[in-house]
């Protein structure tokens, strides 16, 4: 595996170490409270949401200061667990002790927060503030305390908006990373489920968690993923696509090599197959890697429905993929190059429709496809209230009126709309978008070289895909290179009791999914049931 990025200039470490990448030189805290506060204030400027709260200024014994960011902390918690104990502590007010002893007292007894940490530099102090911690600075100490008081407004868990299912869990990830890891923990209650956190983006300092099952996920893939995550050099991560593009394989390939989903059950399913989940703070969309071509045609729904209907639906998806990619191109190729293929009656009615259409089939198709994409984009961007208007305009103006006006032929409208509908069948949006682009190239080449052109384009695509890898896993695995026994969950979905082993696609080894020892086949199950009934 060749490294994707070689311009790695700073090493990054997991969370609890010092996130000091932005400024290489670290500035230690001084012993003076005032000096520290001044320095901090200069650091954040006059940001109105940073709160500096001084305590003990009157007694002058142990002047302290609390620093936190309003909105990021739970103010009830700050009041009850920090402010109140500190102000009411008699020990702190009356006892004579060194600054060191007072510091320890605060840390050990007074502050009633579960997660506390000691900070020594301004950089860690700032980072800690931005995570919602409350920082306690004391006079005479060159260390500070950070108490976890994070608590900001969060969206509650809702139904997934982009990957709906009929029968299956209705939870989706939220923008909060912790909620995400919790949702996963609740699904996989195994000590092997590991969560590793990274901070990525010099300015955004976005938390990213990779989630995998130790012993099932491939260690080589893991190492490669860690290397690529550490190699990211960007100042922002605002969504999952930032990560996807920065660590994905293949350079300029149109094909996605990483899946995304907002469904925790999809991530859990992938993790159980040996994939690695990547959760990103600030977006409900999480990533799954490594992903092969066929992963993009699997949907969680497949596993929540009976195998027969799931298999049927899956075949339909593959068909739709090809139809959506090739139908307009095939239409062009067949009606302008290979008219002999079309049944005579159909050819005659196609010819009748084309009478009076001014443009060649290629231009006609390009025009209609572009119009459709414009409509689709408009539909997405429109405020919801105007949405129906768009569909009426689209359907009436482009469907009916364009045909009647003799601008396009009716057959072309059918081709374009069927293509569009097929595009929506593919469960993974990223894969569906690939086709939207390839379709145009394919139409062009079909208009120039006919079926020969289409075939040439297909073989280029195939070669491209065969040469593509996702984190070292061949993109067309397990079809090419072929492993027949891994095909149980590719074109069809075999019944759960038949899929006893975990295919070695993303996983490191082929391991058991179901213990094979007390094997009860469906036939046996029913016979046992009968025996129970008979007496």
């Amino acid at each position: 595996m060749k490294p994707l990025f070689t311009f790695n200039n700073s090493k990054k470490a997991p969370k609890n170490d010092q996130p000091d990448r932005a400024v290489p030189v670290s500035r230690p805290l001084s012993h003076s409270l005032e000096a520290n506060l001044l320095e901090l204030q200069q650091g954040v400027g006059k940001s109105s949401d940073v709160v500096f709260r001084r305590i003990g200024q009157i007694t002058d014994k142990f002047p302290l200061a609390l620093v936190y960011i309003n909105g990021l902390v739970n103010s009830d918690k700050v009041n009850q667990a920090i402010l109140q104990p500190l102000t009411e502590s008699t020990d702190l007010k009356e006892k004579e002790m060194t600054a060191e002893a007072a510091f320890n007292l605060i840390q050990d007894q007074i502050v009633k927060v579960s997660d506390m940490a000691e900070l020594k530099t301004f950089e860690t102090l700032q980072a800690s503030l931005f995570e919602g911690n409350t920082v306690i600075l004391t006079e005479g100490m060159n260390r500070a305390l950070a108490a976890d008081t994070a608590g900001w407004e969060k969206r509650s868990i809702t139904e997934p908006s982009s990957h709906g299912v009929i029968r299956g869990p209705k939870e989706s990830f939220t923008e909060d990373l912790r909620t995400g890891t919790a949702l996963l923990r609740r699904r996989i209650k195994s000590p092997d489920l590991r969560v590793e956190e990274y901070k990525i983006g010099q300015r955004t300092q976005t938390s990213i968690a990779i989630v995998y099952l130790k012993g099932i996920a491939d260690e080589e893939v893991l190492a490669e993923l860690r290397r690529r995550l550490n190699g990211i050099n960007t100042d922002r991560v605002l969504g999952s696509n930032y990560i996807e593009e920065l660590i994905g394989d293949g350079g300029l390939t149109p094909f996605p090599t990483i899946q995304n989903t907002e469904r925790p059950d999809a991530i859990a399913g992938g993790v159980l197959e040996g994939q690695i989940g990547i959760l990103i703070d600030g977006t409900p969309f999480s990533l799954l890697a490594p992903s092969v071509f066929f992963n993009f045609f699997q949907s969680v729904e497949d596993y929540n429905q009976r195998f027969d209907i799931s298999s049927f639906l899956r075949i339909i998806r593959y068909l739709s993929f090809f139809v959506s990619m090739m139908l307009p191109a095939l239409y062009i190729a067949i009606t302008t190059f290979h008219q002999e293929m079309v049944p005579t009656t159909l050819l005659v009615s196609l010819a009748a429709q084309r009478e009076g259409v001014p443009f060649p089939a290629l231009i006609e198709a390009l025009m209609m496809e572009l119009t459709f994409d414009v409509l689709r984009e408009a539909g997405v961007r429109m405020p919801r209230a105007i949405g129906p208007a768009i569909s009426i305009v689209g359907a009436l103006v482009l469907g009916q009126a364009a045909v009647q006006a003799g601008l396009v032929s009716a057959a072309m409208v059918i081709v374009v709309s069927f293509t569009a509908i097929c595009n929506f069948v593919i469960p993974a949006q990223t894969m569906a978008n690939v086709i939207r682009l390839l379709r145009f190239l394919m139409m062009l080449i079909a208009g120039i070289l006919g079926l020969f052109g289409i075939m040439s384009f297909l073989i280029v695509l195939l070669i491209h895909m065969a040469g593509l890898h996702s984190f070292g896993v061949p993109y067309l695995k397990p079809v090419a290179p072929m492993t027949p026994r891994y095909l149980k969950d590719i074109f069809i979905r075999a019944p759960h009791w038949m899929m006893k082993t975990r295919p070695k696609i993303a996983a490191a080894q082929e391991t058991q999914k179901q213990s094979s020892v007390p094997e009860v086949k469906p036939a046996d199950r029913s016979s046992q049931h009968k025996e129970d009934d008979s007496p």
Partner: protein
Amino acid sequence: MIQKISTAQAAMLVFNAIAPTATVVLPIILGTYLEQDSPIGILFSACVGMAIAALIGSIIKYNQGAPFLEWIGKRSSRWLAVVLGIFLLQYYLDASAAIMREFVNFLKDNVLLQTPVFVLVGTSLLIIIYAAHKGIEAIARVNSILVLLYLLFLPSFMFGLGDYLNVHRLLPMFQHSFASVTLASLTPVAWMSEVSILLFLAPYLKSPDKARRIGWIGLLFVTVIMQIIMLTTLMTFGPEYLKSSTYPGFVTFDIIHFGNFWENLNIVFISYWILSVYMKLAMFLFATLECFKQTFRVRENGPYLIGLALIIAAECLFTWKQPAKLNEFNAQGRFPVYMLINVLIPLSIYLCCLVKRTVAKRKGQAA
């Protein structure tokens, strides 16, 4: 990282290294000499092909999948390897150009009558350069998918022809003398000898020990497919009609029909054939490149790949302009060249190895 291909993939590569063009060229050559006895000719040449495959396999097993020319260079003299390399390079360039020309001729005759030749050559050239650039792993993978598609095309082919097949057209059998069977089999044997492309795929084999089996399985499939095409053609049209057609392997496609509404489906089958020819071309370009790299001891591909491809294109465009010339070469000129390169050279190398080994053994015993 060196790319590796599995035994099954390699067998499929061997299959597609022979089958696509053989199905175009062989039926007419066989049919002219042997008429309804052509299937026997195919069987006969398959047997010879198997022997050649065994020879090639033995060499690969002997050198444990070492790069062929480098291995020769090491075992004998550096200069012998270079001379041999130039020889082979010339052969592969020539063969690639001839394949390309056949492909383009076929397209010009059947599919794109008006499209200029250079566009067809250019398009296919770009594709095979891309494939060869991606490496043998990608080629092998795509190739395996294509071979699996036979499962789809073969039944529909047979089903579409159902009405027309008549076994009696194969009678009377064994009407031709053994001499004419041998004569007719010369060209098919030349095609079968293309199994020697394995010599250049050897460094990429996961298990070079199985090279012999790879060759055999590949040739077996070639024989089966050739036999199916030959038999269906004979059974639908009979030997007389076959002789008058330029592409007897494809005439059956013209009459395939499903019901009354779907006729003239030849383009569908031709499209599939186009895909497999691309694979063959890509493989040959890859072998040419390998040969070049081993001869002149270069490591990187980039510029040489394009250069070699351009040479092939030029030869294809200018040397084989006359279809008649190419047909004549196919029928007669090919045999000696192919035999020399694919059989005699490997055979002599193998014999040398045997002699050396026995000498070494004797020495060992003597000591």
